[in-house]
């Protein structure tokens, strides 16, 4: 028994309260209540855990000491991206996300939580503007589950059994999509043009049929190229009676064509680049949007915040209340989904980011990423034996570098760069052996010219 323990997180552990409350309940000890659990199932052993509570100072000291073993991207010059992109995070984003009310709210309704619903509605609205899509979900878990949700919608809407995907995809994302959509779909892969890495449109046309539920494209692609044929892919997909799902990077949409512009039916992506920290891959925001038609909105497997009238004429309620019935909270197994508690705080943060940048800032963001990545690719490509970018055509903020001509593997290059305080690009040699000694480099607006030049010099040194 630990009845004597007074714990700082448990107000009632102050002396005397327990006796008073147990007396009110009419039991001698809490063990009488625990008799609800059959004796043979009650754990009686001693757990192999630290037994005693620790003070706040001790917790802080111990964890800081452990975390001190990490080397961070503040210390190392990092060119890692591959789905987790190092953009500048404005001060206001952390400030607003740290507001205690946003941080700790959860299941209330609009009469108490109107403010967070307004903030989420504004996220949906600005994301809708960026995407040029009319309906945006509040937030799903991450970009990968957003793709899974989009594909699921296509299954329910069309009843068709085949999904057409680009061959050049993040294998991890593909794995998750097959877990999510495997029971409903046969994946059909479209080959890529070896020069550009983009979808081979002849192959796409050949693989479409009346079995095709949707064509899923990524723009930019996993390997950083801009899918310049999106409008043409959309036309081909629709001609076959299939839907078009576009997975996009919201940070690119100030400059790249938004999904609405090429008539995508469902758009998805990850909102992490909108001012959210890389956080070891933790800070994600699943973006999911669709056209404002019943067949889409009614199959969207996540709640949205909408505006409803109230009993007072002219008053607006920002509320999620209307939309629960359609997701698993209302329909259980018929909803066929897994999105519950998702990423609202990150949606609010991304909203702050979009509001701060505004339309012109989003153009600046997209332009800076493209320019800096182009600069880095061009300079790296100028090194002896190094090919960059591997694919022709425009890139957003990532590109593939092939070190084959230097006789070094991508892993060897990365190891040598690390010795010089640099985190090289993601080694994609195992994922795509055909690309050679390949690594995927990420350069954003937040890399300076001198940092890029330092990388170029270092690669030059280690591949010499």
């Amino acid at each position: 028994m630990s009845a004597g323990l007074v714990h700082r997180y448990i107000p009632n552990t102050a002396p005397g309260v327990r006796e008073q409350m147990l007396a009110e309940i009419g039991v001698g000890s809490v063990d009488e209540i625990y008799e609800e659990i059959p004796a043979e199932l009650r754990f009686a052993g001693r757990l192999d855990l630290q037994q005693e509570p620790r003070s706040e100072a001790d917790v802080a000291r111990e964890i800081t000491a452990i975390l001190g073993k990490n080397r961070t991207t503040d210390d190392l010059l990092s060119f890692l991206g591959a789905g987790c992109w190092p953009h500048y995070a404005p001060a206001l984003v952390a400030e607003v996300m740290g507001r205690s009310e946003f941080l700790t709210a959860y299941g209330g309704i609009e009469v108490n939580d109107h403010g967070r619903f307004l903030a989420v509605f504004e996220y949906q609205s600005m994301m809708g503007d960026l995407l040029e899509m009319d309906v945006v979900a509040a937030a799903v878990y991450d970009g990968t589950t957003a793709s899974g949700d989009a594909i699921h919608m296509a299954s329910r809407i069309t009843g068709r059994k085949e999904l057409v995907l680009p061959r050049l995809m993040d294998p991890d994302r593909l794995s998750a999509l097959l877990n999510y959509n495997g029971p409903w779909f046969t994946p059909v892969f479209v080959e890529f043009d070896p020069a550009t890495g983009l979808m081979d449109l002849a192959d796409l046309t050949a693989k479409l049929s009346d079995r095709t539920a949707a064509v899923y494209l990524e723009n930019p692609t996993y390997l950083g190229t801009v899918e310049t044929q999106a409008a043409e892919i959309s036309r081909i997909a629709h001609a076959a009676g299939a839907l078009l799902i576009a997975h996009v990077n919201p940070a690119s949409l100030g400059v790249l064509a938004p999904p609405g512009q090429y008539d995508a039916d469902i758009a998805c992506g990850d909102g992490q680049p909108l001012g959210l920290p890389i956080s070891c891959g933790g800070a994600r925001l699943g973006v999911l949007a669709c056209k404002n038609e019943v067949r889409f909105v009614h199959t969207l497997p996540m709640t949205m915040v909408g505006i409803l009238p109230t009993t007072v004429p002219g008053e607006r309620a920002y509320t999620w209340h209307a939309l629960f019935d359609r997701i698993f909270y209302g329909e259980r197994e018929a909803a066929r989904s897994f999105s519950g508690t998702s990423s609202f705080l990150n949606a609010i943060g991304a909203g702050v980011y979009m509001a701060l940048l505004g339309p012109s800032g989003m153009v600046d963001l997209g332009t800076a990423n493209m320019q800096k990545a182009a600069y880095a690719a061009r300079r790296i490509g100028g090194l002896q034996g190094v090919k960059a970018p591997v694919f022709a055509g425009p890139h957003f903020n990532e590109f593939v570098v092939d070190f084959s001509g230097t006789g070094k593997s991508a892993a060897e290059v990365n190891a040598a760069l690390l010795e010089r305080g640099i985190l090289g690009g993601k080694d994609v040699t195992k994922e795509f052996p055909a690309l050679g000694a390949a690594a995927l480099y990420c350069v954003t607006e937040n890399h300076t010219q001198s940092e890029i030049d330092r990388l170029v010099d270092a690669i030059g040194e280690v591949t010499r």
Partner: protein
Amino acid sequence: MTTIDPKSPAAEGAPADRYLEYSAIDTGYRAVRWHEKTLYEQSRPGSTNAILPAVEKGIVDAVGDVVAALPAAARRARPPEMPELSEPEILRHYIRCSQMTYGYDSGNSMGLGTCTMKYSPRINEQLAALPEVKALHPLQPEETIQGILEIMYGMRNWLCELAGMDEVTFQPRGGGHGAFTDACMIRAYHHARGEDFRDEIITCAVSHPCNPATASAAGFKVISLYPDEVTGELGIDALRAAISDRTAGIMMTAPYDTGVFDSQIAEYARLVHEAGGVVSLDQANFNGVMTRMRAGDLGADMVHFNLHKTFSTPHGSYGPGAGAVAVKKAFRDFLPVPVVEFDGSRYHLNSDLSNSIGKVGTFMGMVPNVVKAYAWVLAMGAEGLREASEWAVINNNYLIKKLLEVRGLDISWPNRRKLQEARFSLAKLHDETGVGTLDFNYRLADFGVQTYFESHVPRIVPEPVTPEPTESISKEDVDQFVAAFHHISAEAYSNPEIVLTAPHRSIVHREIHDYENLTQVPFTWRVWKRTHPDG
């Protein structure tokens, strides 16, 4: 709190307010009610904020206008119609929004049952915001992230110990995602054994709806069992009617959302195992039984926890949360990759599990929340965990005792003692006064406490009320909640109009659902603007 903008139309109140006596409505509380316009309505075209660094001239000169060089079809044709405001205006807007949000820290959130609303220690937020977490990339070489791997491995060990299990993944991003991970592993397990014909998952009506929903998302048929009217348990006979040679597994819960602990649960696990099925346990309701009961000892093969409930990581306005799935040794091989391993001196990420289901989400999951949960367990210790669970149970039973004195309110399965929460019913009040649980809940908002959770579906208990006073709740909090219930019940019997037209003192009045389908509800400003040209 006071009304800030008496000129707002909302401040004038519902038509009902005009003929109800002010003294009858007044509770001494008024929510902060800013007459806050959207950013769009405040927009001042041309406002910009120089947040991002300018691109260096050397770069611009070298690469030129790369955007203009894009093919026209690949380029954005028109700028996004987003709001344009200065930084201080934006901050003020969001501060006002936050003031119109009822966080855990704002007051008394014990009404939100099944949510396990507890204090999220701020030291944990500070630790997770250190550059050693925030500025880590998930693809960094192992040798540069030994600290974060050590914390993940430590949390893994603790969860294994608390669950009576052998391995853990943190990849799921919430409870529903955790249940889905279980369903995928069950599918992979039968597939590996050549038993794909097993296509039925058994679950129950008094657990979270994510159990049936994720089972069906994974391709299974779902058989739901209902609690017995007397015992609140599923019963062996009902389970036998559900089990067949097609049984893939059971997704069970202990205790249920009703607070009832099913005394036969170990027998259910045994019967399902006997039929060749897998046993998954949903421990969303773990908060009342920490150190008292272990999933593995009940016969579960796999179990999922919500770090954002039991383990104190903040709810974040509805996420990001974090799920953790723990499994017995026999299922380790089916886990999503990577798993964290320790060789005695260094930590490793192992992505080489032969039957792995692969990925269910990106990277390693919500890593910052693992840091926060780790800090919480460190602050609690085994003794603190036990104490916390005891207080969740004591507070709940004290609440039950007090709340049952409220006229018109009953409890489901009154013959059973409840653990962490209980499902009450206002059916009697509804029959006698016409005031239902939704009306009651709206009125509760006038008392400065958070509204309560009514019930998951199916609503077996009519006019349901499901609060959950965790260990973070004080006796005074419970007394305040109960006093509001007495007040509202008395109103329902004497002047039901007050309750039927509530809320009167909160941020907005009750919403009207007057649409035929969801396309008529604006979910973005662009749609609102189109359908409301005059604002």
